[in-house]
Each structure stands twice: as structure tokens, then as C-alpha cells.
């Protein structure tokens, strides 16, 4: 069968189950776009290529599928780098298709030529430059396989123009088999048995769940495991939703802005079972002091995550879901009598940490950002898909919105990428049209990709944006307040657009609240509007995120409200 490169691309994308692409056309991808419009694949035209990648990220997380984006060569490709780096840090399965100048021109500094494969080598899971149209189908299949297997991640395919418009005799590729890529999925059973023994012997156990649990779709198994063994659970930022946020065993987030009880439980536990985490510095604080009384078990599919930052006693390489399933089976067979009596004291201790030092803030005449998030949680009954920007808004979202399900909290965790929330909300809304999607934003970060309001409007995506508007780059301001003698160097955004008018200029709905009394009414109206809405909450300018562990300090050294 004679097919053009662009037709092969579409054919294989369809075979891989792709129904949506986020992209932006340009000279080098004209042929691809020409083939794309002749398929039933939905294309979401963004306003900036960075947003295409963030949207594909949001789409991947909300749908559990591989996110796909398509951009042109040169600036189109370089604009994707931030989004790719964010997806790479958060292990989000994604395939990025970039146009490239014809192979004969590569290396000649041609118009809109960049070495995007070279640029993205350190921030992708893998990348390809297609040099033969005959390789195209195999490369796409491999890219999807790599993106979604093992520890997922973004894979970039660079497509020179002549590879795309050449016509070849098409032979369907075989299923990808790569001798150099074979992730370990099946955990060592002897190691798992040791965990069961440790659980039986432990007086003060705790579970630390991360994004790996969400990615492995292992939330049900984790929940069963924790309940069966009666072990309290805390999460990393990426792990929120991996365990029900309203369960009595839930301790909240761990780390720099973690709850008092989660941080204290980590410091005092005698057994820490870490599942799908990589012990980021924002979680551990001072590594020597981290869980220093505990035997640490770590389950992760990526061997490099183990022993990287924190030495562990029982390393288990494998898929979290498989490991937890097996652990649950072992627990069923084990004699767990007397366990709950022995844990009583520990659980009481945790309860007293919780009741003496709950997450808290002081009400004042001005709107408190935490109050807005609390109200949002209440009004949406915790069912909304929440995306965030980065900074204080992200931390308040993590602290005051409680996630009972996985894939409902979509945030740029590892890279901490401002401008993520709106495009991610767009991607999530495309994946879940029936859901309420809310971007919790700050006035600083929303301006980084505000142009995507036009994307939301063009594609009728009724995303809701909650701006916690404090007139500052709040998180940096908070560090300046605490560690730089309140020298607010360039963190005050003296000028901001009128977000209500801005919403209206885009054809969306703009609402504003300036007093605590208005918050509920504005949220109710905004959430019930069947259109994209920007809700501008003018909040207490110098509110801080607490608890806070100063960078590099032990996580028990918390600054509290």
C-alpha cells in the first residue's frame, strides 16, 4: 500500500488510540495538518506552544491516556521545552511531535531550524529524529510504548518535512520490542514478605504515597492495603488523591508545607512504607533528619528513585499496583491479631497532633485565600477537577481542597511551572467534558498563559479560574518576608489587568469578590455559569502558607500560624 509519511503518521496515531491533539501549525508541519483535518482526530488549537504541552499534560492526567501535541519546527519546538520538562519531572505519558526542516537542510541553520532533539535530550524520557520514512511507523509505536510503560514520561519525535511528504510502500510495523528497554514490573516476592513481617512488628508505622500510585492506577490497592494493615497515610503533592482525603487514616501532605501531623508522624514513625515517591527535597527537608527513627521500605518502578536521596532498608523495584496487590494478599494470609490494640497509642498520638495543630488561618476583614479554597471545596463537594498554577495558590489548593479520588489534582509538582494551570485545565476539560474543572491561580501565574482564554472560548471549554489575587508573587514574597528582612525585591505586581474586564474581552464571564461576604455568592455564580469564568478574589496581600519548613531544615522544624 502506497502511503505518504503524513498519512502513516495519522494511521499509527489512530491505532494508538489518539483522539485528541493539542497543537499549533507552521511551515514545517503543513503536510501533517493537511492529513490531520482529513481524520476524525480532534485538534485543539492553542495560542502558544507551551500551552499545547501543558494542555496535553492535563489531558493525560485527567484521562489516563497518552497526551499528544503537535507543533512546528524552530520556535514552535523550543516553546514546548518548559512543558516537556514539567511532564518529565512529573512522569506524565506524552508524545510531542515537532516539525523539522527537510533532512538536506539540517545543520545548515535553515529558517526555523533548531536541534530540538539535542535540546530536549535531558528533559524527555526519550526522543527521536526520523531519518527514513520507512522508520516512521515503528518510531511512533515505540514512542507510545516508552511514554506509557515503566515510569511514564514525555517522548519527542522530530519529523523532518521530507520524511512527512514522501510516499512509500507502507508495511505495518510489528509490536515494539526493544532489547535495551524492559522495565521491571514484578516486585521481588521475598522483599514483599519482609514488609509484612515489618508491619506485624511495627508499633508506629506510616505510609507515604506519591504520584507513582496515581500513575500506576493503584489507589484502590493502596486504600485496601492501608485499611487492612491499619496504617495512617500521608501524600506528596503528586500523591494527593492516591488515598481518600476524607479517610480517618489520612494525614495530609508531607513536607515543606505539609500538615503538622504528617511531618511529626514521619519523624516519629518506626516504619515508613514509601510507595511511588522519589523523596524530593521539598518533602525531606534535611535528609539526615528525615524519618530517622524508621525502617524505610520503598516501592518504585524506577530503580534510580531508590537510594537517590534517602537510604532505604527494603528497596522494592516494581509496579506499585502489582506490589500492593501482592502485599494485600500476603496480609490476608498473615496473622494480624492484636495489631489494632498495639497501634492504639500511635493513632492516639497522631490524633492529638491533628487536634492541637490543625491546618489553620486567622479570619480578618479581608478575604483569606484559604477561605476561598475551603468554600470551593464545600460548594463542589470535593468533586471538581482541580488544576493549579504554582506558588501559594498551589499550596493552599493542596492543603484546603481534599481529594478523594486520584487524577483530580493536576499540578506542576516537580518543575513548579507557573502558567501551568490554565492550559492544564483546558486539557482536563477536553478529557472530561462532563466534569467541573477549576484552575486555582494566583494573579502572577495566571498572567503567564492568560492568552489561553481564547483557546477555551474557541473550543467551548467552560473552565473556571479562581484567582487568589494578592498583588504579589506571593510565595517569593513570603520567603523575602521570612528570610530577607521583608525586602520585597520585585515581587510586588503593582500593575495587573482588570481580570473581570479581561474575561469579558475574551467573551468569558468575569466576577469579583472583595469582601469575605461576597466569596460564596461569586463562587456559586461562577461555578454554575455554563461558560468559561474568571473569578477574581481580592485577598489579604501578605497572607503566608503555613506550616512552613525553612529550606534545608528538618521537617519537624515548622513555622506555624
Amino acid at each position, binding site marked *: 500500500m502506497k502511503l505518504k509519511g503524513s498519512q502513516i503518521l495519522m494511521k499509527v496515531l489512530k491505532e494508538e488510540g489518539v483522539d485528541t491533539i493539542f497543537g499549533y501549525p507552521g511551515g514545517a508541519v503543513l503536510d501533517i495538518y493537511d492529513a490531520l483535518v482529513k481524520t476524525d482526530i480532534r485538534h485543539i488549537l492553542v495560542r502558544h506552544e507551551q500551552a499545547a504541552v501543558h494542555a496535553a499534560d492535563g489531558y493525560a492526567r485527567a484521562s489516563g491516556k497518552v497526551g499528544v501535541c503537535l507543533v512546528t519546527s524552530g520556535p514552535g519546538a523550543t516553546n514546548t521545552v518548559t512543558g516537556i520538562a514539567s511532564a518529565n519531572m512529573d512522569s506524565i505519558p506524552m508524545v510531542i511531535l515537532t516539525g523539522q526542516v527537510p533532512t538536506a537542510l539540517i545543520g545548515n541553520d535553515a529558517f526555523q531550524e533548531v536541534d530540538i532533539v539535542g535540546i530536549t535530550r535531558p528533559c524527555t524520557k*526519550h526522543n527521536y529524529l526520523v531519518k527514513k520514512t520507512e522508520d516512521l511507523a515503528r518510531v511512533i509505536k515505540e514512542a507510545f510504548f516508552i511514554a506509557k510503560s515503566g515510569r511514564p514520561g514525555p517522548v519527542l519525535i522530530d519529523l523532518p518535512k521530507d520524511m512527512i511528504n514522501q510516499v512509500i510502500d507502507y508495511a505495518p510495523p510489528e509490536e515494539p520490542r526493544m*532489547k*535495551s528497554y524492559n522495565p521491571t514490573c514484578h516486585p521481588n516476592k521475598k522483599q514483599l514478605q519482609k514488609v509484612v513481617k515489618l508491619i506485624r512488628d511495627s508499633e508506629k508505622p506510616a505510609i507515604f504515597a506519591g504520584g507513582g500510585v496515581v500513575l500506576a492506577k493503584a489507589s484502590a490497592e493502596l486504600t485496601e492495603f492501608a485499611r487492612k494493615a491499619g496504617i495512617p497515610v500521608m501524600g506528596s503533592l503528586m500523591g494527593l488523591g492516591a488515598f481518600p482525603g476524607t479517610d480517618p487514616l489520612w494525614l495530609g501532605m508531607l513536607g515543606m508545607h505539609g500538615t503538622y501531623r504528617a511531618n511529626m508522624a514521619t519523624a516519629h514513625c518506626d516504619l515508613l512504607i514509601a510507595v511511588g515517591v522519589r523523596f524530593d527535597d521539598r518533602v525531606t527537608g534535611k535528609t539526615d533528619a528525615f524519618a530517622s527513627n524508621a525502617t524505610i521500605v520503598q516501592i518504585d518502578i524506577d530503580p534510580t528513585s531508590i*537510594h537517590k536521596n534517602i537510604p532505604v532498608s527494603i528497596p522494592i523495584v516494581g509496579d506499585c499496583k502489582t506490589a500492593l496487590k501482592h502485599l494485600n494478599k500476603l496480609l490476608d494470609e498473615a496473622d494480624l491479631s492484636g495489631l489494632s490494640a498495639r497501634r492504639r497509642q500511635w493513632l492516639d498520638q497522631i490524633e492529638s497532633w491533628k487536634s492541637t495543630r490543625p491546618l489553620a488561618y486567622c479570619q480578618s476583614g479581608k478575604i483569606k485565600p484559604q477561605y476561598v479554597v475551603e468554600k470551593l471545596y464545600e460548594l463542589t463537594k470535593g468533586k471538581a477537577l482541580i488544576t493549579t498554577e504554582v506558588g501559594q495558590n498551589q499550596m493552599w489548593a493542596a492543603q484546603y481542597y481534599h481529594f478523594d479520588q486520584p487524577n483530580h489534582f493536576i499540578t506542576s509538582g516537580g518543575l513548579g511551572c507557573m502558567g501551568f494551570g490554565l492550559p492544564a485545565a483546558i486539557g482536563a476539560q477536553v478529557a472530561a467534558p462532563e466534569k467541573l474543572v477549576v484552575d486555582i491561580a494566583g494573579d502572577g501565574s495566571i498572567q503567564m498563559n492568560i492568552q489561553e482564554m481564547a483557546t477555551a472560548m474557541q473550543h467551548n471549554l467552560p473552565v473556571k479560574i479562581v484567582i487568589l489575587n494578592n498583588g504579589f508573587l506571593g510565595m517569593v514574597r513570603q520567603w523575602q518576608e521570612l528570610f530577607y528582612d521583608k525586602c520585597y525585591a520585585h515581587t510586588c505586581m503593582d500593575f495587573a489587568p482588570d481580570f473581570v474586564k479581561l474575561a469579558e474581552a475574551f467573551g468569558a464571564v468575569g466576577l469579583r469578590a472583595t469582601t469575605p461576604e461576597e466569596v460564596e455568592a461569586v463562587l456559586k455564580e461562577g461555578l454554575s455559569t455554563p461558560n468559561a469564568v474568571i473569578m477574581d478574589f481580592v485577598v489579604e496581600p501578605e497572607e503566608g502558607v503555613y506550616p512552613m519548613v525553612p529550606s534545608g531544615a528538618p521537617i519537624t522544624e515548622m513555622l506555624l500560624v
Partner: protein
Amino acid sequence: MNHEKHVLSILVDNEPGVLSRISGLFSGRGYNIDSLCVAETTDPAISRITIVTSAEMPVVEQIKKQLNKLINVIKVYELTGSEFVEREMALIKVNAQPEHRAEILRIVDIFRCKVVDVGLTHYTVEVTGTEEKLSALITLLKPIGIKEIVKTGVVALFRDPK
């Protein structure tokens, strides 16, 4: 903690960009490369990269895991103890004034190396051996005057059971 020398032998896909992935991994994560050698194996689809790195043990473990994580890396071996042979080659262009010629040839003889190029004022000496042998030879030739030197870096292979 000791920064010991570790020899890593890495089998990789023989494709463009693979070396860059590996050197990029070392530079991006702040690991050292003391020397690096790369060439095709008997299978033209596979290349062998030999890297000498100095790092503490936990870091070397992390390096090996990170290398294994690269899609194009097929296998990573760490060569340790006496279970492997290692060799390095150097070409040393040494000042050879008439009064030194006999001495240079005597040293060449003792070290069982070869003079591969002769000029009016220089000899170029080819030497193969362990790093220690090479540095011993260089120490002896230095007073006579080394004009230029080039080294290959270490290549190494496991010994097979006797």
C-alpha cells in the same frame, strides 16, 4: 569517603546521539568523566563505551542506574578488582637531541614500547599499558622534554574464568 576510580563498560545501540545522551547524563548530573573510549563491537549495531569515573560508592550505584535507564543503553558492567584487564595507549613526542637519543631508546626498551616516528629533533614513542605504566614512562621522559602527548583513555574487558 574515598573517590575511587571505577571502570564502567557500557554496551549501547550504535546510533547517532547515543554518546551525547551518555555524556549529557554525566554533565547534567554532575558526575565525573576521567576518560572515555567508544568504538563499534563485533556486532555493528552495538558499540562499547568504556568510561572511567571517580566517585563515592553510592554515586557510582546511581550512575549505573541512571545509565541503565537510558533507552539506548543495553547493558552496564562495572569492572572491579583484578577480574579485568585494562590498557591505555599513548603517543609521546619527545625531544631527541643527539645527546639524549641513546637514553630514550634505553627507556623505550625497558618499557617495551616502540619508536614509531623519528625526526631530526624528536622521537614519537608508542606505549601501551596500565595507567601506572604510562605515568611512570612519562615521569622518566619529562626531564628530556616532552613536546606533545596524546592518550586514548582506558579500555577494559573482564577476564574469562581460567
